[in-house]
C-alpha cells in the first residue's frame, strides 16, 4: 500500500513533471517554429523589391503630389537676381519652387535662395496684422489694430505733411523695392523726392565707372559668358552673391567645362568663384586697379591693342593714355597688390590674345574702396583696349530693363510703362521754394557751389547730397548710409518716416547711428514700417503694416539678359496673402485715397491685377492669347530678335535723324525728342567704304566710350574736394587708400562678404538656410593666425578704426567699434585680411534668426496657416550647445562713402585683432 502509494506519488509526480517538461519543451519548439517561420518565406534581403505604389503609400501623407498640385509661374524674390520660377501650389499652400525654363536669363536654373520664399511666407513669426506700439519706441510692446485704424493714422499724418507745403518731409526709405517704379508713383504723387534707397550700400562705386564709360549702367554690364574664352575676375563673386550671379554661374561653368574657357580671379578669400577659377591670386584690398593699369601697360607695350576699335570708339588717343599710365607697371602693381609682375604680364597677354572672346568681371571687391571708382575705371579700360566691348564672348551691353521708348538699344521692343495718368516728378529745390528756404545756411552754401546743371536738379541733402554729385548725376543712386546721420545733423527735417522692407538698423555700416536716430522722437516724429517680418528696423517703428510676400503679390520684372535678348516677366500671386497681410499696391491705394488732394487719381484701380494688365498691355498684344497666356508662361521674350551685339554700330533710325543736327567737330548727332534736346548718335566712317554713316554710338555725351570723362573734375569742384585730389581726375587714376600706405605690422584689413545661402540680411530667418549658415566667424589666413598664436575656434576682439580719407568723419582718430568673434583659419585668405560675413548676430527676425529656442514676435494670432513652430528644433542655439547665430558686424564698420560717388567703402577697414584668453 505504502509502496503503491509511493508508486502513485512517484507516478503522479513524474507525470506532472513530465507534463510540465513536455509542455515547456513544446512551448520552446512551437515558439521556435513560429520565430523561424518567416525564415522560409520566399524572400531574402537583396532580392526584396517593393511595388512603387505601395512605397508611395508609406510616405508622409502630405508629400507634394504633382498629380494634383498646380504650377504657376512667377518671379523669384530670393535675392536681387529675380529669376523666373514656377511655384507648385497644393491645398492652398506653396510647396515647392523650381526654375522657369522659359526664362532666358536663368534658363530654368535657381539657387537655394528661391526656397527662402517658402520659408518667409510660412515663417511662424511672420507679421500678419497691423500693430501699433504701446510702450516706448523700441521697447517691443505692441497692440493689434485694424487696417482701418492704421490707414487712418498714417494717412492723417501724411495728409498733414503734404498739406503743410513740405511734402519732402515725408521720407520713404526702402531696402528692397522691386516694384519697378510703383513706389515712386506714390512718392511722386505725394510730391516728395525722398524715396531713398540702398544703392550706395550696394553698387554705386562700380556703376559710376560703367555709366561714365558707356553712358548708362544698363542695369549692369552683360558679359557674353556663353561664348567667352577668358574671364578676368576682380573681386566679383557670381557663384555666390552677385547681381546677375545666377545668370552667369551656369554660363561660366558651361564655358569653362565644355568650352575650355579660363577664369583668373583676384580676390582676398577663396570664394566659390575663386574655387571655380583656373588661377587664383590673393590681392591686397584696394589694389585691383593697380593690376588693371599694369595690364593695360602690358597690352599697349606688347602691341596687343585693338587699335581700330580704340581709335574708333575711345574718346582719347592711345598715346595720351599710354603716357598717363606709364608709371603704373606690373612691378609697381606687384608692390601694391602682392601679385607677381610676371604673372600680371602673362595673364594680360593671355587675356588680350583671347580677344574679343574675353571679358573683365569687376564688382564690389574691386570697387568698394576709397580708390575703387577710379580703380574700376582703370579696369574698364582693359576691355576697350582689347576691343571686346559688345562683341561675341566679350563685355556686352544690352538694352536692359523695362523697355520705354527712346532708351538706348530698345528699338523694336514693345513699350512697357506704368498705366496713365502718371504723376509728375517732384520739383527741384530751387531758391524761392519752401523746400529750399528750409535748408540750413551751410547747406545753401554747398548748393551754391554746385555746377549749374546740378543746381537745377538739386532736391535736398537726402535725395541729392551736395557733396556727392555723382551719386545723382546719372540717376538718383543717393547715399543711403548718410540718411540717418544727415537727419541727426539737421540737414533734413522729417515728419513721417516710412520704411519699406528695410534693415538699416541691423545691416548698415555703423547701424547704431541709424538706431539712435530712429529712437529719437524729435528727429523722427513718426515711423511706420511696412515689412513681412519683425526686423530690427521695424522694431523701432511706431506702427508696422504687414505686407504680402512675393508669393502673394504682383510685380513687373525685367533685367539685363545674359542671353543678350531682352525679356520681361511677371510676378503674380500664387496664393492669397496670409492673415491680414496686404499687397503694397493695396496699402498705397488706400493711403492715397485717404490723403486725397489729387493723389487718388494715380491709384484708380480696385483690382491690382487690372493695374498690371494695363501696365503690360503692349506685351500682351504681342502674345497670342494675350494677358492670360503671358500669366500662364510668366515670361515673354521676342523669339525672333537678334542678340544685342555691337549696339553702338547700329544705324540711327530714320525718324530720329529727321530734323537732327550734327556737331561738325565731334560728329555727335542731336535731335529734339519729346521737347528735350538729346544726342541720338554719331557720324562714323564705314569701316569698309570709309563713307560717313549715322550710327548709335554709346549713350554718353560724346557718343563714344568716355575713358576720359570731364564730369569727375567738375564734380570735384562742385563738391569742394581739394585741388588735385585724385578722385576728381578726368582720366582713370591710380592712388592708394589713405592709411594703407602706413599700415603698422599688426594692422589688418577687415573685409565683409555674403554667404551663398543668404541674401542681404533678410534671410537669417529662413530655417533651411540658417541651418547651413548661421554663424559668421572670422576667416583669417593660417600663417598670419599662427603668428598671432591663434587657432580655429579662438575668440578674438576686433577693433576697427575710422577711415582716413575725405569721407564721413574721415581722418578723425577714433575707434568705430569693437566686436568679439571666433576665428577660422584658412590658407586661401589674404595674409593681411580678415573676412567677416554678413547675416550673423540678428537680434530680431524671430527664433530662427536669433538662434533661440523661443519665439520673440510681439503679437501672434493663432489662426494663420503658418508652418509649425520649429523653435524647438534650432539645434545651433546656444541652449542646445550650438554656436548660436554669430556676431553682428555692422555696428563696428564705419560709415564710409566714397568721395563724389557716395558708395560705401566696405573693404577699407583698418583693424587690429587681439586674442582673448
Amino acid at each position, binding site marked *: 500500500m505504502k509502496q503503491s502509494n509511493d508508486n502513485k506519488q512517484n507516478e503522479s509526480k513524474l507525470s506532472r513533471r513530465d507534463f510540465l517538461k513536455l509542455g515547456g519543451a513544446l512551448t520552446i519548439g512551437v515558439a521556435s517554429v513560429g520565430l523561424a517561420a518567416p525564415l522560409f518565406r520566399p*524572400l531574402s*534581403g537583396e532580392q*526584396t523589391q*517593393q511595388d*512603387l505604389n505601395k*512605397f*508611395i503609400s*508609406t*510616405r*508622409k501623407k502630405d*508629400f507634394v*503630389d*504633382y*498629380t*494634383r498640385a498646380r504650377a504657376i509661374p512667377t518671379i523669384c524674390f530670393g535675392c536681387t537676381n529675380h529669376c523666373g520660377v514656377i511655384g507648385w501650389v497644393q491645398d492652398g499652400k506653396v510647396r*515647392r*519652387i*523650381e*526654375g522657369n525654363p*522659359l526664362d532666358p536669363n536663368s534658363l530654368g*536654373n*535657381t*539657387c*537655394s535662395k528661391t*526656397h527662402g520664399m517658402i520659408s518667409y511666407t510660412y515663417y511662424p513669426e511672420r507679421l500678419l496684422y497691423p500693430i501699433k506700439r504701446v510702450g516706448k519706441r523700441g521697447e517691443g510692446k505692441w497692440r493689434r489694430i485694424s487696417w482701418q485704424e492704421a490707414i487712418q493714422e498714417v494717412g492723417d499724418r501724411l495728409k498733414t505733411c503734404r498739406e503743410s507745403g513740405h511734402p519732402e518731409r515725408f521720407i520713404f526709405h526702402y531696402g528692397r523695392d522691386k516694384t519697378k517704379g510703383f513706389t515712386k508713383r506714390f512718392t511722386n504723387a505725394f510730391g516728395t523726392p525722398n524715396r531713398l534707397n540702398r544703392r550706395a550700400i550696394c553698387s554705386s562705386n562700380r556703376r559710376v565707372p560703367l555709366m561714365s564709360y558707356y553712358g548708362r549702367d544698363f542695369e549692369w554690364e552683360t558679359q557674353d559668358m556663353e561664348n567667352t574664352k577668358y574671364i578676368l575676375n576682380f573681386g566679383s563673386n557670381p*557663384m555666390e552673391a552677385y547681381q546677375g550671379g545666377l545668370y552667369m*554661374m*551656369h554660363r561660366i*561653368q558651361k564655358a*569653362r*567645362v565644355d568650352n575650355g574657357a579660363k577664369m583668373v580671379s583676384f580676390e582676398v578669400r*577663396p570664394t*566659390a568663384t575663386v*574655387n*571655380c577659377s583656373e588661377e*587664383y591670386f590673393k590681392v591686397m584690398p584696394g589694389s585691383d586697379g593697380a593690376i588693371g593699369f599694369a595690364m593695360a601697360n602690358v597690352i599697349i607695350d606688347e602691341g596687343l591693342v585693338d587699335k581700330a576699335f580704340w581709335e574708333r570708339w575711345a574718346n582719347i588717343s592711345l598715346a595720351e593714355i599710354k603716357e598717363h599710365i606709364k608709371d603704373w607697371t606690373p612691378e609697381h602693381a606687384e608692390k601694391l597688390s602682392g601679385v607677381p609682375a610676371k604673372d600680371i604680364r602673362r595673364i594680360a597677354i593671355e587675356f588680350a590674345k583671347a580677344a574679343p572672346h574675353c571679358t573683365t568681371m569687376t564688382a564690389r571687391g574691386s570697387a568698394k574702396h576709397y580708390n575703387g571708382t577710379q580703380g574700376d575705371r582703370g579696369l574698364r579700360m582693359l576691355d576697350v583696349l582689347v576691343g571686346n566691348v559688345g562683341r561675341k564672348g566679350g563685355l556686352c551691353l544690352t538694352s536692359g530693363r523695362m523697355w520705354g521708348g527712346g532708351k538706348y538699344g530698345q528699338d523694336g521692343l514693345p513699350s512697357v510703362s506704368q498705366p496713365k495718368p502718371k504723376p509728375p516728378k517732384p520739383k527741384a529745390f530751387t531758391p524761392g521754394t519752401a523746400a529750399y528756404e528750409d535748408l540750413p545756411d551751410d547747406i545753401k552754401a554747398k548748393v551754391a557751389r554746385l555746377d549749374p546743371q546740378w543746381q537745377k536738379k538739386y532736391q535736398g541733402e537726402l535725395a541729392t547730397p551736395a557733396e556727392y554729385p555723382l551719386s545723382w548725376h546719372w540717376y538718383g543712386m543717393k547715399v543711403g548710409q548718410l540718411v540717418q546721420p544727415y537727419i541727426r545733423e539737421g540737414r533734413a527735417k522729417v515728419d513721417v518716416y516710412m520704411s519699406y522692407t528695410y534693415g538699416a538698423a541691423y545691416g548698415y555700416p555703423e547701424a547704431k547711428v541709424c538706431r539712435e536716430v530712429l529712437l529719437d522722437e524729435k528727429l523722427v516724429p513718426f515711423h511706420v514700417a511696412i515689412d513681412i517680418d519683425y526686423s530690427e528696423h521695424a522694431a523701432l517703428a511706431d506702427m508696422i503694416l504687414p505686407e504680402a510676400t512675393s508669393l502673394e503679390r504682383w510685380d513687373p520684372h525685367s533685367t539685363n539678359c545674359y542671353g543678350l535678348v531682352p525679356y520681361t516677366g511677371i510676378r503674380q500671386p500664387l496664393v492669397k496673402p496670409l492673415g491680414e497681410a496686404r499687397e503694397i499696391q493695396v496699402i498705397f491705394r488706400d493711403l492715397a485715397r485717404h490723403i486725397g488732394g489729387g493723389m487718388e487719381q494715380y491709384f484708380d484701380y480696385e483690382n491690382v491685377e487690372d493695374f498690371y494688365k494695363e501696365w503690360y498691355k503692349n506685351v500682351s498684344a504681342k*502674345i497670342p492669347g494675350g494677358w492670360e497666356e503671358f500669366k500662364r508662361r510668366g515670361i515673354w521674350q521676342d523669339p*525672333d530678335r537678334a542678340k544685342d551685339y555691337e549696339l553702338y554700330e547700329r544705324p540711327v533710325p530714320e525718324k530720329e535723324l529727321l530734323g537732327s543736327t550734327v556737331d561738325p567737330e565731334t560728329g555727335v548727332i542731336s535731335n529734339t525728342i519729346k521737347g528735350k534736346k538729346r544726342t541720338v548718335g554719331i557720324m562714323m566712317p564705314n569701316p569698309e567704304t570709309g563713307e560717313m554713316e549715322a550710327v548709335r554710338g554709346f549713350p554718353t555725351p560724346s557718343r563714344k566710350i568716355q575713358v576720359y570723362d570731364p564730369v569727375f573734375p567738375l564734380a570735384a569742384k562742385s563738391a569742394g574736394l581739394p585741388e588735385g585730389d585724385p578722385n576728381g581726375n578726368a582720366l582713370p587714376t591710380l592712388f592708394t587708400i589713405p592709411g594703407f600706405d602706413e599700415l603698422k605690422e599688426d594692422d589688418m584689413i577687415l573685409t565683409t562678404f555674403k*554667404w*551663398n*545661402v543668404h541674401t542681404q540680411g533678410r534671410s537669417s530667418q529662413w530655417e*533651411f*538656410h540658417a*541651418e*547651413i*549658415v*548661421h*554663424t559668421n*566667424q572670422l576667416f583669417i589666413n593660417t600663417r598670419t593666425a599662427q603668428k598671432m598664436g591663434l587657432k580655429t*575656434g579662438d575668440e578674438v576682439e576686433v577693433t576697427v578704426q575710422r577711415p582716413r580719407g575725405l569721407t564721413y568723419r574721415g581722418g578723425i582718430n577714433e575707434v568705430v567699434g569693437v566686436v568679439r568673434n*571666433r576665428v*577660422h583659419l*584658412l590658407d586661401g585668405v589674404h595674409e593681411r585680411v580678415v573676412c567677416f560675413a554678413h547675416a550673423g548676430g540678428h537680434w530680431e527676425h524671430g527664433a530662427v534668426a536669433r538662434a533661440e529656442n523661443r519665439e520673440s514676435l510681439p503679437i501672434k494670432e493663432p489662426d494663420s496657416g503658418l508652418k509649425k513652430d520649429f523653435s524647438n*528644433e534650432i*539645434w*545651433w542655439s546656444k541652449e*542646445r*550647445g*550650438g*554656436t548660436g547665430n554669430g556676431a553682428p558686424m555692422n555696428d563696428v564698420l564705419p560709415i564710409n562713402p566714397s568721395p563724389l560717388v557716395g558708395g560705401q567703402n566696405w573693404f577699407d577697414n583698418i583693424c587690429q585683432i587681439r586674442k582673448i584668453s
Partner: protein
Amino acid sequence: MSDLPPIPWESPINKSRSLKMKRAGMVIDLRRCIGCHACSVACKTENEVPLGHFRNRVRYLEQPDVETLSFLPLLCMHCQDAPCLKACPTQAPTRLSDGRVVINQDKCCGMKACISACPYGAIYIDDTSGRADKCDLCTHRTSLDLKPACVASCPTQTLRYGDLGDPEDPVAKYAKEHNAKPFKEDADTHPSILYIQQEKWMEKAAATGVQLSSEDNEIIYEQNGRSS
C-alpha cells in the same frame, strides 16, 4: 512671329506613376559644382526634412595642395549592393524596380542598423516619426518623369539624373565618356551615384569637411546629426 515654346511644367497633372528605368542613378560632375547648397535646400523643402538632418548636403573641402576649396555634394548612393538592405532586420530598406533603394516607413522600428551600416552616412532618424529616412531619388517626382528635387534645382547641371542601365541614356553616356566613378569605391557597394573628377583625398576630407563652421562640426556637419 514664331510660335511660343511649349509649357513644360503643366505635364504631370493627372499622370499615373511608373518607374521606367533599368537602373535609376545620377552623375555628379564635380567640375561644375559651385557649392551653392541649392540641392540641399531644395531637397529639404521638397521632402520637409526636419532641421538637423540632410538627405543631400554639400561639403566644403580644403584642397591638399592649393589654397582653394572643393565642393562635394553627398547623398544616398543607391548602392546595387546595399549594406543597409542587408543590415535591417525588418526589411524596411527595399529596392524598387529601377534599382533605387528606399526605406519603407511602415516597417522601420528605428533600430539604426541601416544607419550604422551605411558607408555614406546617408540615413537619419526623422525625429517626428521615429523612423529612418533618406533620399529616395524623389520617387514621388521621378515616377511622374520629373527630375529629383536636387537635380531640378542644380543651377550648374552638376547633378544629372538618368538611367545608368541604358547605354543609350545621355546621362549614362556622359558618365562613361568622363569616366565617372563611385565615391569611396573601396566600399565596393556598387553605387548608382557616380562622380566625375572625384579624387581620393576627398574621401578623407569628406568625413570632417565642413559646410560652414568648424565649430558646428561636432554637432551637425558630421552629416545628419543633432544633439539629443
